[in-house]
Each structure stands twice: as structure tokens, then as C-alpha cells.
């Protein structure tokens, strides 16, 4: 008998951290396929760049901290951070900005606080917010997919890859890039256009941003898979979407001329990807189920407020980071009453 004194319980379920992370990556597949259709094969390239930078940063940080890099790389959480960044960043972003975002995410977002499980902020959003503040021009150069789709896929692939690698004149894709739906909404309102005029702009699709609404649908699909596999619970995504929809609906009810409705906000920008894949990061989120509802609702409402009243067209990353700050407070006040305790 080799292990006397081993403590009860003597049984363990099969699921490991690595397995959880792999399933999250699998659930991102629909999003990746739509991305491939809309923007050509830039996502695999961006993912490779982000994964290499994040993995390198992880290995470096672990070496500096005198930990075994092999064991930590095995848990796949670095890969998830890289994949979320690649999915959330503009598709034709120069590779070195992607690499920088990934390195900052791992080094400042994660290891500065003690590594896996210790980070108070969502690492991917730390990286995202950093490059958004540092490179506002490149970070808002999204492609209008309708225009990109007019190109044949071969041209799209060649030019796209060359742009990411910095081997093409950025002017080559300038013709395809334009304001996103949220940017068009912001500038349209500033120019005192009516809501009908704004919605007629090419940046808009049938319910959300042109093209982006398909990405949102794919993220929703992947998110439902995560819910079905019980990797993610309903509290955070539901609260994010409900918080944003409620805030948007209330604003629109008061002043329909100056506010787009809830549906546009749900199906544009980073909403769906964020609600199911980013806000659900357990490490930097609230602990209890009740706390997660407060946390998610805060992200939804804050994202809406930043979009409607802030300088930035989308505010998901900032909303997540702000609510990360509030987590200790939320946790402190959302401890459930144990079984057998009477509410007083």
C-alpha cells in the first residue's frame, strides 16, 4: 500500500483544467469559421502570432519566477488567452500589435499578479485595452465585410495576409475598411443624422453590424455549446446581455432619436463574444452565482454607457476591467446563506 494517510475523498471526477480549456477552444470554432468566410485566412495567422507571443511570454515569466514552464504550459490557459485576443482584435491588425497585446496580457495581466488563478484582471482584456489606448488608429481599422466580400477570396487572402505581415501598402485595404456599426452610430449622432439615416449606412446589417452580426451569431452558438457542456453557467452571459439590453431599451424609450435599440447593441461590437467567452473568465470574475449576476449586469450596463456616452465606440474591454475591480466588493456581499441558516 503506497499511499497511507491520503485524505478522503478517494474519488475524483474526470474533468481537468486542461480539458476545460480545450472545450472552450472547441466552442470558438463556429466563430472562427464565420471569421474565415468574412475576412479570409487572417485569423489562423493572428492566432499563431498571439499564441507564439503569449506562450513565449509565459515561458519567460515562469523562468524568471523559477517555475517549471512545461507544467504550466500544459494547462492550455495561455492558448485560450491568445485565441480570445485573436478573435477580438481587428482582423487586419499588423502582427506586431497582436504580439504585443498577447505579451502584455500574459506578463502584466497574469504573471505580474502571480500567474494562473491569481490575476485580478482579465488578462486578454488587459492586453486589448493596452493596444487600444496605444494604437487607436490601427485598432479602429475594421473591415466592412460587405465590401471585403465583394473581393474574390484569393485576393482577400493574399492582401489580408500581406497587410498583417506588413508586406503590403496599408492603402491596399483602406478601400475595404471603414467605420464599424458602433463607430458609424457615434459619428452619425454627432452629425445629427436621424436614426433612419444612420441605419442606412453600409456599416449596418439587418440586425447589428454588417458581417459582425454573423460573428455575433457564431459566438452565441459557441456560447450555447459552453452552456450545454456546463463549462459556463448562465449567470454571467445572461446578466451581461440582459444588463446591456435593459440599459439600451430604457435609453431608447426616453429618446428614440438619439439611441439605437437593444438588438443593435447585442449584435454589434464585442457583445456576444464578450458575454460568453470573455466575461466568463472565472479567475477575475465574481465567485458566487449571485455575485456573477451582479458582475455580468455591471459589464452589460457599463459597456452600454461607454458606447453611448464615452469617447470609445465600443467599451467591452473597459467594462470588464472596471467590474474586475469591483469583484472583491461583490464577493464580500454575495456569500450565500448556508443550508439550515434562517434569513434574518
Amino acid at each position, binding site marked *: *500500500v503506497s499511499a497511507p494517510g491520503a*485524505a478522503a475523498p*478517494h*474519488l*475524483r471526477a474526470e474533468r481537468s483544467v486542461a*480539458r476545460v480549456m480545450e472545450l472552450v477552444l472547441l466552442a470558438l470554432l463556429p466563430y472562427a469559421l464565420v471569421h474565415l468566410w468574412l475576412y479570409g485566412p487572417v485569423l489562423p495567422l493572428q492566432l499563431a502570432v498571439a499564441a507564439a507571443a503569449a506562450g513565449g511570454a509565459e515561458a519567460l515569466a515562469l523562468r524568471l519566477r523559477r517555475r517549471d514552464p512545461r507544467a504550466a504550459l500544459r494547462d492550455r490557459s495561455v492558448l485560450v488567452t491568445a485565441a480570445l485576443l485573436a478573435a477580438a482584435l481587428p482582423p487586419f491588425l499588423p502582427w506586431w500589435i497582436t504580439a504585443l497585446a498577447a505579451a502584455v496580457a500574459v506578463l502584466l495581466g497574469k504573471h505580474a499578479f502571480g500567474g494562473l488563478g491569481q490575476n485580478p484582471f482579465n488578462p486578454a482584456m488587459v492586453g486589448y485595452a493596452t493596444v487600444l489606448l496605444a494604437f487607436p488608429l490601427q485598432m479602429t481599422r475594421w473591415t466592412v465585410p460587405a465590401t471585403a466580400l465583394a473581393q474574390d477570396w484569393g485576393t482577400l487572402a493574399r492582401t489580408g495576409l500581406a497587410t498583417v505581415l506588413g508586406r503590403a501598402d496599408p492603402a491596399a485595404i483602406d478601400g475595404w475598411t471603414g467605420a464599424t456599426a458602433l463607430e458609424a452610430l457615434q459619428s452619425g449622432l454627432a452629425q445629427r443624422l436621424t436614426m433612419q439615416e444612420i441605419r442606412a449606412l453600409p456599416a449596418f446589417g439587418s440586425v447589428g453590424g454588417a458581417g459582425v452580426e454573423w460573428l455575433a451569431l457564431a459566438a452565441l452558438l459557441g456560447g450555447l455549446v459552453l452552456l450545454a457542456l456546463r463549462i459556463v453557467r448562465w449567470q454571467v452571459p445572461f446578466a451581461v446581455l440582459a444588463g446591456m439590453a435593459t440599459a439600451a431599451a430604457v435609453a431608447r424609450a426616453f429618446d428614440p432619436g438619439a439611441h439605437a435599440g437593444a438588438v443593435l447593441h447585442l449584435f454589434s461590437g464585442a457583445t456576444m463574444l464578450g458575454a460568453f467567452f470573455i466575461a466568463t473568465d472565472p479567475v477575475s*470574475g465574481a465567485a458566487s452565482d449571485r455575485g456573477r449576476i451582479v458582475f455580468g449586469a455591471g459589464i452589460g450596463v457599463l459597456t452600454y454607457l461607454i458606447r453611448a456616452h464615452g469617447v470609445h465606440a465600443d467599451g467591452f474591454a473597459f467594462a470588464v476591467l472596471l467590474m474586475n475591480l469591483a469583484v472583491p466588493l461583490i464577493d464580500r456581499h454575495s*456569500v450565500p446563506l448556508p*443550508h*439550515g441558516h434562517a434569513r434574518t
Partner: protein
Amino acid sequence: MAASASWPGGLRIPSRKHAIAAGPLVVAPRPRRVLLALRQSMETGAELEPCVAVGARVQEGDCIARPRHAEGAALHTPIGGTVSAIGQRTLAQADGAGTCVVIEAGAASDLAPRPRVPLGDGFRSLAPEALLAQLRDSGLAGLGGAAFALDSKLAQARRSGCELLLLNGVECDPWTCCDDRLLRDRAAEVLDGALVLLHASGAARCVVAVGDDKPEACAALEAARVTLGDARIELRAVPALYPGGAEALLVTTVTGVALPAGKLPADVGVLCHNVASAAALARFVHAGEPLLRRIVTVTGSGVARPCNVEAWIGTPLSELLALAGLGAAPLERLIVGGAMSGLAVADPSVPLTKAGNCVIAASAADLGLPGAAAELPCIRCGDCARACPVDLQPQQLHQALRNGDEPALARLYLDDCIECGCCDYVCPSRIPLTARLRAGRALALRRRAAEAQATDWRERHAARLARDQRAATTQRAQFERARAEGDGGGAP
């Protein structure tokens, strides 16, 4: 018939016990040597007081140790022979060892058992107090795991007014199936025990709760219930959800009302006993047999013929393992008690106690241990909180323990942990949460005791200073008075 659980969390753990429960009950031969532990379970506190000396000759069924307090139950020898030693032996208990009375079987003539005088149906004409007095020397104890004296629980229930007798046949541990086999074979005996308990406790009705993963046991009980025809006894299938057999949770399941934290079932008028305890009580009343044996599940991949064994208390586990065909391959772990809450022991010569419901000769595959079972950092996924049957936040408790943050531990209700192991089971980072929380509770208890002691000393010290001060003041006053009187009276 099915009731839904009204406590949070819980787990459905894959189980292989159904096939083992379906196999026949193996009756173990009487051992040539027994080790009778003077503390049959950690929960029963102080050791019993032996009432035999080394060299004494004993008959089968003789009482060899008596309790010093109410929770303990008397201990009887299942074999006749000679007391060869009384001393420390390794035990399957948390502190690893304890005093045992060792008895070696003698010649065949020694084996004649002490004559038995059963109460029989005469128990009905005894007043409950008189019946309880008879039970004091029966050695009957809770066979579900804690081994509390049966009569002490009964007396407690009588004091607080018992309305419901709850017989626990849930057996939620994924490896243990001794109660399943007992119910299949001896349902009538269990119900006979229920009648005695109803009489002794004054309860108006009895619910026998059986896990709904035991259809054969339920059928056998139902048949016995119909034959008995006592309207006070009701059968209830409860969800086979781990840890649904835990007393406080079962009370919630059956009564639909959460047992208030810190209260015992007796406080809400419920007397809870294991079905095996009821069967043993019937055997005592109708056959006059003190508690000498119990059914124990011997299982795990380490044995060729996993089975339920009716074994004698004090039998070394190695003999039971041999009976079930212990193989030559080295074991990953030998576990006494269930897979979820049992204790790993190093020495297979430890004896069976009244609390021993399951022995697992486990291989690595049995335990679901992968190649690298290393602990990873907590990622706060919250799976533990969802599994927790008392709605605690194990991941936050774990963090508070790491921080040594005692106020946070209190705020997170550390004391409410029932140590069921659900949080460990689901943890994807393989953190030994239960062991950590247990250690944290023990530490907090010690800290609180030390603080109470320190406060006590401080108060005594302050009281003493005040006393000395008062004494000095009085003395000075007396002195001053005396001097004043001396001055006044002693004029030159």
C-alpha cells in the same frame, strides 16, 4: 413515493456497487484472534474502560469493556478464549492507533457461548425507560459510521420529544453496499427493529428512507412491510444523490424542512438510525445477541471476489480481504469506510470496528487518479460551490485559509462544512479542499480554545491585581487607623 431533495448541490457519482450488492452475502468464519478497539469510532470520544484483565478467560458474548460516558457502547467479544494483551495497536482511525483488547481463541470447549436470554415480544410490556436500561449493556451502536451508543440517541430523542423515527438506508457512498444487501436479505428484521425503536422512542410513525438506486431493496422492504401490516411504517425512496445519506440532509429530504444549523435531528423531533442498527437491535431483542458482527462491503480491484461479508467485530481486515480474494498486485490504497469519506490505512492488520461499513482494496484506476494528479492553482470556476450540499463557497474558503484570514473564514461559514468531499470530487485543479477545510477548522478550534484560555488567565490576573490592591488599601487603612489611635491614646 419519490421525494425530491430540498438541499442544494450534491453529486451523482458513477458506481459499480450494484453488481456487488446483487451477489450473495458471505458469512465470515469466526477469527482465531480478535482485536477489540476500546474506541470503536473517532466520534465516540474517550476510550471504553476494559472490564477484563490480561490472562482472563472469556466466553463468546462476554462484555469486555464498558463505556465511561453516554455516547459509548459496551463492547463484547465474538469469540471465547483468553485475553492475551491489552495495549496500543494500529487502528483505522484518524490518529492512527488506540488501545485494543486482544483475545485469542482457546480450545474447542472454550467456544461455548454464554447463554442468551432474549426479551422477545416481551419488550412491548416493558416501560421505555426499562427497555433503554436493557439496551445499555447490549453493545448496540450506530452502524452507519459514527458508532454512537444506540440507547444514548434514544434517550436524547425521548428527552426532546420524538415524533418521527427515520431509518437511514440511503447508502449514498459510491462503493458501499452493505445496507443494500442487508435490506434485500433481512428487511423483516429491519422492520422488527423499527417496532422496538418506535416503542422505545415514543415516535408516532417511522419512515424508512432508501436510495432510489436500490430497487431490489425497496421491493424487499415493501414486501416485508405488507406482511407486517403496521400502518405506522412508511417506505420512502429518496434520490440517490451523494451525500444524501448524511443525517442532517436526510432529515431535510424526508421532512421537507431544513434542519437549522447547529441543531441535531432530535431537536426537531426526529430520531435517526441506520437500517443496520435497527436489524442489530431486532437480533438483540429477539435472539439475545449483543452486537458481535456486522455486514461490511469488501471491494475494489485489489480483490478477486468483491462481496458483502457478515464479519465479526475485531476481525483483522487482512482476513476479510483474503476471504474476498486479495490479489498479489500492490494496492494503490487501502481504504476503510466509504470511497468518499473513508480513511486510508497503511496496515491491513487493523481490526474491523462497529463503524466499519466498507473496506476498499483500491487500484489507481479505481480512484480515477490520472498519471499526473498534481494540484494546480484554483481558477475560481465555482464547480465546488455548485456541488456543496450546504451551499458553502469552498474556493473562497480555500483562499481565506491561504491568507490566514480568520474573519473571512467566519464570514464564509467554515464551521458549517460537513466534510462530505463533494468539492474535492469536482475540482478540476485537484485541490484537496476537504482536507484543507478540516485542518482549517481544527486550527480555528485550537485558536479559539487558546484565546478563551488567555482571556481566562487575563481576567484571573486582573482579578488578582484588584484583590491585592484592595487588600493593600485595607491594610493601609487599618495601619493608618491604628497609628491615629496610637497617636491619640499615647500622650506623653
